Each structure stands twice: as C-alpha cells, then as structure tokens.
C-alpha cells in the first residue's frame, strides 16, 4: 500500500511543475477571468508530463497513479482540472466514442471534463430519438473546469439505464459560479435540449456511471488532502518562526497538540483516499463504493478541521486576503461539499452495511 518509486517520481515531478506554474495571485484578482487562472500553454505542458493521459487503458494508468497527481493539484491550489480530464479520456476509450477528443485531451490540445448532476439533485436525463440522436435535459450544478473545457462528458439517465454523451461545451448553457473556491473554475451547466448525434454517445451499464461518480468524488477527496497538507506545512513553518511572549508559538504545548492533530487527520484522510483509488482499480464497484464513502467521511471532516485549525494557529496573519491560507481553506470546503457530502457518504456506509 506504499507508493511505488514510480509514483513517488510522478508526485515529485507534478509537484515541481505545479509549484512553478501555479499563480495563486490570479485567484485573488478581482473578478478573476477564467483566462487568468490558466493558459492553453499550461494545459499543453501538463499533457506533456502525461498528466491528462494518466488513466487511459492503453497507458496502463491506474487510479492509484491519478491519486498522486490529484493530491499535488490540491497542494498547489492549481486551477487545472487534470483529474477530471484524465477521467474523461479513460471513459471515452473504454466506451469507444470520441477517440479524437480523447487524443486531444491526452495531447493537451483541449480539455474535457465530466458533467454530472450533484448527488442530491435530479439526474440529467437523455431521450433517444429515432435517428439515434440523444436529446438531453437537466443540469449539472457544479462542473469543475466547466468554463475552460472544450468538451463535456455528460452522465445521463436513459430509461432504466445510463448513457455517457460527449458534447461540445459551447452547445450547453454554462454559467460561471461565484463560489467559496477562488482557485478553480466552477460552472453550472444546463443541458436542456442539447442534441447528441449517434456515435457521440453510448448506452453504458450502471456500473460505468457509478465509476464516474466514484472517481469524481475521489478527485475532490484527494484534492482536499493535498490542500490540507499544504496548510499543515504552512502552519508548521509559521509557528516555528512566529514569536509571542518571547518564544516561538510552536513551542507552546497546545499549539503542538493542535498541529499534531492536523497531521494525524490529514494522514488518515490521505490513507483513505489512496485506498479508495486502489479500490477503484480493483474494478469491484461495491468495494470501491465503500472505500470512496469511507474516504469522503474521514477526509471531509478531517481536512476541514485541519483547515480551521490552520487558520486559528495563524492568528490575524491568516485572516488577510493577501495570505494564501484562505484560498486553501475555501477550496477544501468546496471539495467537502460537492460530489457527495460527508453526510451522504455516511448514509451510504449505513445503507450498505450488512
């Protein structure tokens, strides 16, 4: 269950690259335009590192590898929806549609992200026409990367079955959301009336749609773990330096204990997240469903608690707009609330318990 040498290298490479590329000042800019958050160049460079093709069956990529990358995206506070894009490339390859889009994502020529209804909203629905067209209805309330993406992979209910449909993002009505998270592009996507020609959609089993939901949940869990890890580092650094009453704040026992609790919370969340990634790789939907819910419960609570402690331990310093701290705290709260809240994950763990 330890990271392999390859995974450690992947994490290091992603971390170095993201540290250079990520401009958190852009997140703080007023009325930050999407354009300011990342450039086409960033996407191409990420693809060159292999980060968007990571999950393609032909690459032998695994969710365990993805986990490592997503954690680094969270740690960097990166705007790039690379986990989502890698997931779309994998699913397109698996169901055998949109080969060109899958290649474009893998090459970094374009971004594609999944669009699915939030777990507590009504599902997006698809109505098949006589000519093989699928007409969509419904709404995905919080699509991460939805504005920057050229393509959307829509998860829709089809009769008692499920469909995945690839649509040009411009064909949907996208509304930029103003959210707690300043570091990512999040859009509401209204798909009402979007017609998907035959060949651009496929009827899939409930299993694949469930995998998509699980993977999306996992991406937010690991993103939060990475962001919380960053906050731990920031906090440890701060309390070592900062002095009060003539001593470093970090030498006070209560501060130590708070920092230790943060570290343990984050370690537990990280282990649960990576365990869920391996469970997704196992292909067992029930095992994966449980593991994702475990991770969602443990990480949702643990990372938000860690963020809250980080803010407290930074004192007034962390309360300013100019400090990066709140960017991560905000991001973590959004990661906790979208694609399944801790409450929903816990309900799943009881609904499925023997």
């Amino acid at each position, binding site marked *: 269950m330890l990271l392999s040498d390859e995974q450690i290298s992947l994490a290091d490479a992603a971390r170095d690259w993201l540290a250079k590329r990520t401009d958190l000042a852009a997140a703080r800019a007023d009325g930050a335009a999407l354009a300011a958050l990342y450039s086409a160049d960033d996407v191409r460079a990420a693809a060159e590192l292999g980060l968007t093709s990571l999950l393609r069956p032909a690459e032998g990529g695994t969710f365990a590898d993805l986990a490592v990358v997503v954690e680094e995206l969270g740690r960097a506070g990166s705007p790039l929806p690379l986990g989502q894009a890698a997931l779309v490339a994998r699913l397109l390859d698996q169901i055998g549609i949109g080969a060109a889009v899958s290649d474009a994502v893998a090459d970094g020529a374009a971004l594609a992200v999944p669009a699915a209804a939030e777990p*507590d909203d009504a599902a997006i629905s698809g109505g098949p026409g006589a000519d093989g067209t699928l007409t969509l209805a419904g709404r995905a*309330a*919080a699509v991460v990367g939805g504005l920057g993406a050229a393509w959307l992979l829509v998860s829709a209910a089809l009769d008692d079955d499920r469909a995945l449909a690839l649509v040009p993002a411009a064909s949907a009505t996208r509304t930029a959301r103003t959210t*707690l998270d300043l570091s990512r592009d999040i859009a509401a996507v209204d798909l009402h009336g979007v017609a998907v020609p035959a060949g651009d959609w496929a009827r899939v089993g409930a299993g694949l749609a469930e995998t998509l939901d699980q993977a999306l949940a996992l991406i937010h869990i690991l993103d939060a773990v990475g962001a919380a890890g960053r906050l731990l580092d920031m906090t440890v650094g701060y309390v070592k330096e900062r002095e009060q009453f003539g001593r470093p704040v970090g030498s006070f026992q209560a501060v130590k204990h708070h920092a230790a609790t943060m570290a343990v919370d984050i370690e537990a969340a990280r282990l649960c997240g990576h365990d869920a990634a391996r469970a997704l790789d196992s292909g067992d939907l029930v095992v994966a469903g449980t593991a994702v819910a475990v991770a969602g419960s443990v990480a949702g609570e643990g990372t938000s608690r860690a963020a809250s402690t980080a803010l*407290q331990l930074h004192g007034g310093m962390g*309360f300013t707009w100019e400090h990066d701290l709140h960017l991560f705290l905000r991001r973590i*709260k959004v990661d*906790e*609330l979208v694609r399944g*809240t801790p409450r929903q994950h816990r309900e799943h763990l009881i609904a499925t318990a023997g």
Partner: protein
Amino acid sequence: MSVDWGSGTELGEFRAQVRAFVAGHAPGRAARAGVRSPENAEELAELRRWIAALFEAGYFGADWPVEFGGDAGHDPRRDVVVAEEIARARAPMQLGGNALAASALIRFGSDEQQARLLPAIRSCDDLWCQLFSEPDAGSDLGGMRTRAVADGDDYVVTGQKVWTTNGHWADRGYLLARTDPDAPKHKGITAFAIDMDTPGIDVRPLRELTGTSDFNEVFLDGVRIPAAAVIGRPGQGWIVANASLAEERNGVSAAVVDLQLAWEDLHALAQKIEIDGRPALEQADVRQRFGALRAEIRACALLGQSSFTRWRAGRERVIDAPAGKLWFSELNLRLNEFAVDLLGARGILTEGDTDAVDSGRWQDAYLYARAYTIAGGSSEIMRNLIAERALGLPR
C-alpha cells in the same frame, strides 16, 4: 432568549421605546457578519447621523459622568437593552474606537482633552480608531514595538499598527506607543489622542479573507505629536488601555442577539430546503444540531448576563469575561459551519452568485467567524487566563 428583564416593567417599557427609536432612525444597510466599516462616504455620513441621534436621545452616553452629558440615575442594564435592540435591528453598533476613547478620556483625560474631545464624540463629528494591535505582537500587547520618542515638547512616533477598524475614515486615533524602552514590558507604554491627519500617518486598507476591507494597516513614520496629546501620564498607557478595555460589558448580550437571529433564520431555512426528499428539519441529525445550538445560545446569554450582573454587584470573577468570550466565539463558528454544511452542494455559492442562498450570508459569516476566536484575545489566551488566573495553575 435575550437578557429580557421582564416586559411591562420599567426596563420592558424602556426596551419598547428603544425598539421604536431604532426602527425610526437606523440607517438601512446590508447585514454582514462582524465589525464592518462604511463602504462609502454616504454610508459614513449616515453612520455619523445615527450615532449622534443615539447620543442625542440619551441611549448612548447615559453612563457618562453628568458633567459630560451623562445621566446621574443611569441604570447600566439600560445599556444592555440598547445594545440588544440595535443588534436585533441589525443596525450599526456604537463604534468601538469611539467608546474606547471616550472611556479613556473620561477616566484619564485632561480637562482640556475632555472639553475638546468628548462633545465631538457625542455629536459623532469625530470618528476614532484604536491603534493598539501590531503585526508582531498579536495577542501579546507587551511585545509592542511602536516607539514614541520625546523631542522637546513633542513626541515623534514611528511604528506600525494593524487591524485598525475604520482607520481610513477616522478623524482621531487612540494610540499606544512605547515611550520607555528600558522599562519592564508593560510599564514603558504611553497612551495618546492623535489627529489622524497629522503628517507621517499612512493608512492602508487591509483586505480580509472575506474579500471586504474593514480594517487597515497604519504606518507611522516620524509622526510629530504634542505632549498635550498624552492621555493620563507617560508610562501609564497600559493602565489606561486596560481600564477602557474592561469597560466593554455589553458585547456578549448584543452578540447573543446576533446568534439568536441567525439561529431563527437558519431554522426557517431548514424548513424550506430538503434532504432526501424531506424538509431538512425533519431529519433527526439536523434536529439534534438545532436543539443543541438553541441550548448553547441560551447558555451564552446566561454567561453574558451573569458576568454583567456580577460586575454590577462588584462580584466579578476572573473566569467571567473570558468564559463568555470563548463560548460565544466558538459557538458562533460552530453555528456558521453548520449552516454552510447544511446547505450541501448549494453551500459553495457565495455573495455575487444569483443562486446563492440568502445572498451568501452564511458563507460570509463562516469565513468571518474565525475573527472572533482570534481577535480581542485569542481562544488560546482566554484559556491560559482562565487556567492561570482563575484556576491557579502554574505559569
């Protein structure tokens, strides 16, 4: 759930008068969490009018000595009623800087200072800011570094202050600075009443994590102020400041009203939003949280009331004020975290988003909540104080 000293009684009638007055005079402005500054000159003018009206009506300043406009037979419980009613209307509170300065001037000011400065506080022609906190001192005021060096009949002040509410609007500043670097930590500090337009003062807005700018950094570079600006005696600043800080007695009562209103609004919201196809308020876990919060808000009211009553009776204990501050600030954080979590995925939308629930009020309050657990003595400082000075644990 407020202090509520009986309706129909003398205080109950007073409350009704205040409520009517507040309804008639309070400026309209968007309710936001926490201590917030006027956003423009118009809001500032409205604020001045409002505060002046409260003094004029005798609702503010009744606790002042008679010679400065106070009421000889003043019942301090009326101050609590006034604070509660202003909070209930979500109207602007007494300005912290003005209250603090008034308290210091009344106790320690020279005759000249009192004659010149107190009337302008009553009329709100003067807005005061408090220049205590420093970036490197935090909760440790003893670590203050801003220096005031005597030079002839003047002092020359250099240093930096932070978290200055209304600094950008203020006419006057209530400043603490170190005048004797060789004296023990708390003994070399002096209090000053300064004009904020004195050359060398640079006020820069400080943007909080909520995105708004209600505080400032204030840079003082060779600021020349006359010796007559000293409040009390040189070296007495620590005593002056502590006496005026200790004056603040109505904070918890007003804060409880805020909590109560927030609880009521959230409770109404929980009847509208659904979880698993049922109103959220029908879910037992949601009910339990609301029930616990209702009880904790009442406990907060009682802590405030007990502290106030003990103070009036001369039986105040060390634990009283810190216990109320801790309880309020941690409860306020819990309540607003719960609010955001209760909204689920909708909870991510904030002010400025057309679909944000209650215009993003809960997210704003959630982000702002940490201010209360940090400012005015952090939760850590409060617990140290209780442990060392109320329970007698060794330092």
